[in-house]
């Protein structure tokens, strides 16, 4: 009995001791909830409200012909925030379908600016403006060619900035697909050596791009009755949020309201998965239709049909939202790739679009680090083990956080900055 008690005490002491040395305080344990909610206000890192951010436009291809409905996207938009004194410069690459000015890049910019970096923020190569203004082929998603597009953009922006600032070292980071991009940009830099990146950080990247897009496409199967019933799903969602909205005291649609709506609607994991699936489907539809307009490949739009500034997409918009990343991969991306590399098989293309393709480089390159979550929803079962195995102690894997849910959590922000300052 006495032995049992002391054992219990010992266990209790050990667990508290463990908790004291290794506490991870990110509060949301459900991976789907974490992905959707993110980091509650009181757990966020303390960052400056404003930084001297300048939004700019730059022409990447002088002779680029832009389809009429996309007339406003001829130049690439980006932002920078510069220090007055000599400082290191960090490039930020956004995730799938997200702009240079999205919430996550803004938060990273605030964190790095506060830590004394010049910051340059770039859209994902899958973001409409990037596809239109900066993608050489107009077909995004190829890890090597996207890296070349991004590298070109970085060089052009650096051309504009180099007379104005003094840079001590160059760094690069990106989250989600931007993390995968970061790896291939760093690899390309070994060859080009324009920046000689001193360090690179991949934040929640996919291992195999194809596995991740398959998972994301499949999330829409959580819509009751499948994607054909999207409309009913949308109306029910609006109705539920509407109920909260019509009863709410205050009327602004801000984070606080959305959080209230979330609590009141109390969605289950299937509904959350459906919601995440919808959000990525919108990104995929945007990217696919934009690319189709750029290349005139006849994927959704009949190839001999021209859209004017006033053309209504009508049914084509709905078709675009019915097709997923994997449809894009098999019937558009692969077809396009075969023209450039005759004889390439689907399997080879799938394998090439992954971190495993450059495993040796990642293993032997001390400059590349990664941070990830054990329960990230964009990874297939077992894929998370790739990181500790290949990166060793350059991999930081958090026990929870879903896909980027903990990115604004203070420990995560600390670690992200420390990777570049140590």
């Amino acid at each position, binding site marked *: 009995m006495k032995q049992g008690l002391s054992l219990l005490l010992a266990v209790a002491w050990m667990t508290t001791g463990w908790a004291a040395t290794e506490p991870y305080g990110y509060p949301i344990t459900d991976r789907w909830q974490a992905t959707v909610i993110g980091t509650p206000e009181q757990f966020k890192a303390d960052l400056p409200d404003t930084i001297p951010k300048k939004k700019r436009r730059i022409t990447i291809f002088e002779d680029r012909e832009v389809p009429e409905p996309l007339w406003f996207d001829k130049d690439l938009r980006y932002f920078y925030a510069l220090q007055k004194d000599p400082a290191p410069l960090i490039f930020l690459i956004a995730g799938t379908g*997200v702009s240079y*000015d999205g919430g996550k890049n803004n938060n990273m910019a605030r964190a790095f600016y506060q830590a004394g970096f010049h910051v340059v923020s770039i859209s994902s190569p899958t973001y409409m403006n990037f596809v239109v203004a900066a993608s050489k082929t107009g077909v995004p998603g190829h890890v090597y060619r996207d890296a070349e597009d991004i590298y070109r953009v970085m060089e052009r922006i650096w051309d504009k900035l180099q007379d104005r600032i003094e840079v001590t070292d160059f760094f690069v980071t990106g989250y989600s697909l931007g993390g995968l991009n970061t790896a291939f940009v760093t690899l390309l830099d070994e060859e080009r050596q324009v920046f000689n990146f001193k360090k690179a950080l991949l934040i929640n990247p996919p291992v195999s791009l194809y596995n991740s897009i398959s998972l994301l496409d499949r999330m829409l199967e959580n819509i009751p009755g499948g994607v*054909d019933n999207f*409309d009913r799903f949308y109306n029910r969602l609006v109705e539920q949020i509407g109920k909260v909205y*019509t009863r709410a005291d205050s009327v602004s649609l801000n984070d606080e309201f959305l959080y209230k709506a979330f609590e009141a609607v109390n969605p289950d994991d299937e509904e959350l998965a459906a919601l995440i699936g919808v959000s990525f489907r919108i990104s995929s539809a945007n990217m696919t239709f934009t690319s189709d307009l750029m290349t005139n490949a006849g994927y959704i739009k009949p*190839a*001999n049909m021209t859209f004017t500034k006033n053309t*209504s997409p009508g049914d084509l918009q709905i078709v675009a939202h019915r097709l997923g990343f994997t449809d894009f991969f098999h019937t558009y991306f692969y077809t396009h790739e075969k023209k450039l590399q005759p004889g390439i098989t689907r399997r080879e293309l799938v394998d090439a679009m992954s971190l495993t393709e450059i495993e040796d480089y990642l293993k032997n390159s001390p400059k590349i680090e990664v941070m990830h979550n054990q329960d990230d929803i964009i990874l297939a079962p077992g894929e998370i083990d790739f990181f500790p195995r290949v990166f060793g102690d350059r991999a930081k894997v958090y026990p929870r956080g879903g896909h980027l849910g903990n990115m604004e959590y203070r420990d995560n922000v600390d670690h992200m900055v420390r990777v570049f300052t140590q």
Partner: protein
Amino acid sequence: MNITLKKFLPHALVLLAILSLGACSTAPVLPEGEEPLEPRFSADRVLIKGATTSADEISDPWEGFNRSMYRFNYRFDKYVFLPVVTGYQAITPDFMEKGIHNFFRNIQDITTLINSILQLSAEKTANTTVRLVVNSTIGILGFINVAHEVPRSDEDFGQTLGRWGVGPGPYLVLPVLGPSSLRDGTGTLVDAIVIKEIRNAALDLETWQEWTWDILRVIDLRAHVAFRYYETGSPFEYEWVRLLYTTKRQLDVER
């Protein structure tokens, strides 16, 4: 109707007429005599026959005009509106900016009060009355939002019409102000005229003072809307804005 509005309206109508002339067909263009080539994924192949969507239910017969106006608004935003707002924010001390914002929200509460009464909503009428009285007196003409604990709502004449069964009618993109509908656009005009009439009855303002008021009001309005044209990254932005605006207004009417 006061003098400036009388002067302004014909100009606005002429501008609208010119812009609507610039609006053309919303159909895609095909080479003479050709049939559309079958795309990889056609609507026939992908969609269930006869299925309608929420987006289909929105009436947009003036789409050509609306799209032209949407582009005009982007340019106006980019070259006039946003630079002015940025300049305004740069030269105005924060407390003054906040005060001016509160002042116009207090004026907006007059519109809300009138419409709450017209909607026969006792709760909104009571809350808004308290807000107006407290903020206009203790809050020094509304510059300080003393009654911030009292729930605030935004009720306009478009919602009042909706409350009594008037549907939104065709979607309409207004110059400068953006997404609206025939009903809501009419409501906006009615609310603006009423506020001007009240202002003229209560105050004896010089023309330049009226202009300052109106311009500040519009700048303050823009300063508090985060939306930026063509930043969504969607080739379907026009459609998304139309759907979300219509949905939001439907909820506003229901609240």
